[in-house]
């Protein structure tokens, strides 16, 4: 009998700790598949910082470095500068990348650091129990915005993809979602392009992935996907913001 679906060789057999319905598992699978398909798994080093991604070093079947909160881009810079032939990538959540680590992500883009970043935007702090993130939507209830986020108190949510696309060294910037099979396929294509950019040596690439957090959103997995479509997609439009071809 032919095998039509198999777990990627890019993942280990360790059981994921992610909550039921969370889309981290889907994105892990996509990254792993792309690394295998591009035949770079054996020369890749991933950097997982703090948040729900903290344990990713156990899940990816390649060399990994755990980083402090927000600093994955700096750690990845150190790795890549020592060993430029490695394929170096970071996997960061929105608390990590859009709050505590804004300086680091802006400056890898600024330097055009030849690394790839996978950015999980689920509009909330997952690991610490559902606090407001810079990406939390206006009106969204979290454990630190219990009556809903307001513009007056916390400003409007940060649009990281749009912001990073203004920086010259960020040569590939795309926002994707993993809410439907079609969007999952598009997300994989974008992740693949971001890694191909690194292999071409042209600069920094980032894919922002709209994701769900059923536990902290207090919704079922299915309702979470619908909430993402209804609330996140209008504010965080999917699409490409930057491709290397634009610069040629």
């Amino acid at each position: 009998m032919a095998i039509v679906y198999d777990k990627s060789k890019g993942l280990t057999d360790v059981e994921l700790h992610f909550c039921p319905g969370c889309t981290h598992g889907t994105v892990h699978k996509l990254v792993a598949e792309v690394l295998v398909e591009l035949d770079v798994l054996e020369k890749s080093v991933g950097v997982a910082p703090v948040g729900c991604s903290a344990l990713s070093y156990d899940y990816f079947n390649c060399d990994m470095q755990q980083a402090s909160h927000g600093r994955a881009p700096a750690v990845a810079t150190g790795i890549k500068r020592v060993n430029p032939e490695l394929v170096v990538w970071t996997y960061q959540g929105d608390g990590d990348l859009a709050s505590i680590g804004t300086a680091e992500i802006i400056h890898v883009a600024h330097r055009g650091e030849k690394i790839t970043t996978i950015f999980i935007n689920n509009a909330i702090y997952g690991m610490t129990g559902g606090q407001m993130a810079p990406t939390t939507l206006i009106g969204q209830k979290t454990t630190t915005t219990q009556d809903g986020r307001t513009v007056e108190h916390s400003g409007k949510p940060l649009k990281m993809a749009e912001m990073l696309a203004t920086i010259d060294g960020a040569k590939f910037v795309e926002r994707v979602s993993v809410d439907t099979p079609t969007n999952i396929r598009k997300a994989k294509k974008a992740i693949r392009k971001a890694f191909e950019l690194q292999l071409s040596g042209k600069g920094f690439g980032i894919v922002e992935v709209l994701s769900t957090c059923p536990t902290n959103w207090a919704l079922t997995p299915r309702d979470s996907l619908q909430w993402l479509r209804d609330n996140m997609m209008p504010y965080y439009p999917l699409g490409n913001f930057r491709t290397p071809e634009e610069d040629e």
Partner: protein
Amino acid sequence: MSKVLMKGNEAIAEAAIRGGCKFFFGYPITPQNELPEYMSRELPKHGGVFLQAESEVAAINMVYGAAGAGGRVMTSSSSPGIALKQEGISYIAGANLPAVIVNIVRGGPGLGGIQPAQSDYNQVTRGGGDGDYKMPVFVPANLQEMVDIMMEAFDIADYYRNPVMVVGDGMIGQMMEPIEFKKPVPRELPVKDWITTGTKGERKPNIINSLFLEASDLENHNLEAQEKYAEMVKNETRVENYNMEKPELVLTAYGTTSRICKNVIAEFKKEGIEIGLIRPITVWPFPHKAFEDIPESAKGILVVEMSQGQMIDDVKIANNGRLPIGFHGRSGGMIPDPQDIILKVREMLGGVK
């Protein structure tokens, strides 16, 4: 090789390159800027990489990544900048990574000033970062000793898979002295089979990490570190015992302050009064034995620091209540005056002699 006259910060950089440093990540701060400037010019000529980071925080995390990828790597900064690096240093220690950190100390707290000081003693020996970690901290007193230690520092870091800190007060960074670059005694260094260079399909993934969610795993990790620290105490403790045969009083000071104390000792010799000096060259590990070995002739210990009194706590621990302890300190960039130290010595010896 003949001696060359060099400015402290540049000599440190040159010694680092000769000691095998290949990667430098740093952020500008006075009074150590000549060090990264020299590195930016010279390191690429030796096949290395200099990168100016966006902050001290980013720089120390680049050091973490580079060390985990097998690079011989360093950063340098000055007191408030070192404070910013402390979290990263804790991670480097926690993940068993070798790296060298140079701290050219200026006066604090806060933004403080840019003049020489020794008020980072607590921040460099007690860790500023979290957890039960230690690192060898060298406090050379002159440029020759500074470059000797810099040329050895990367080997020490690799030998123990541990961060190493080399500390100079602002004076060491800014002064010029004749120096000679001498190769250190070679150490047998372990093979770095733990680094993240890609599995190449030949081994299981390597993971650089300081996270242990199981309490028992974290305790075991800490116990293993303690074994390593015990080895450092045994092998790396360094001290100079000066005029300690039959001292009436013992001065203790490190770095450039110890040189002022030697002048004081010379003054008393003219009067026939013998004053000794215990000069720690490492402040962690602290040279406890030197204090245990103080001869019966000594009536007390005078601690001299360019701070309001930080090393004095370690001296009290080492002295263990045996001798009276006095203190003379200046801070904020003010340098101890030999006359003030002489007065304090006379006071401790029981009035004018």
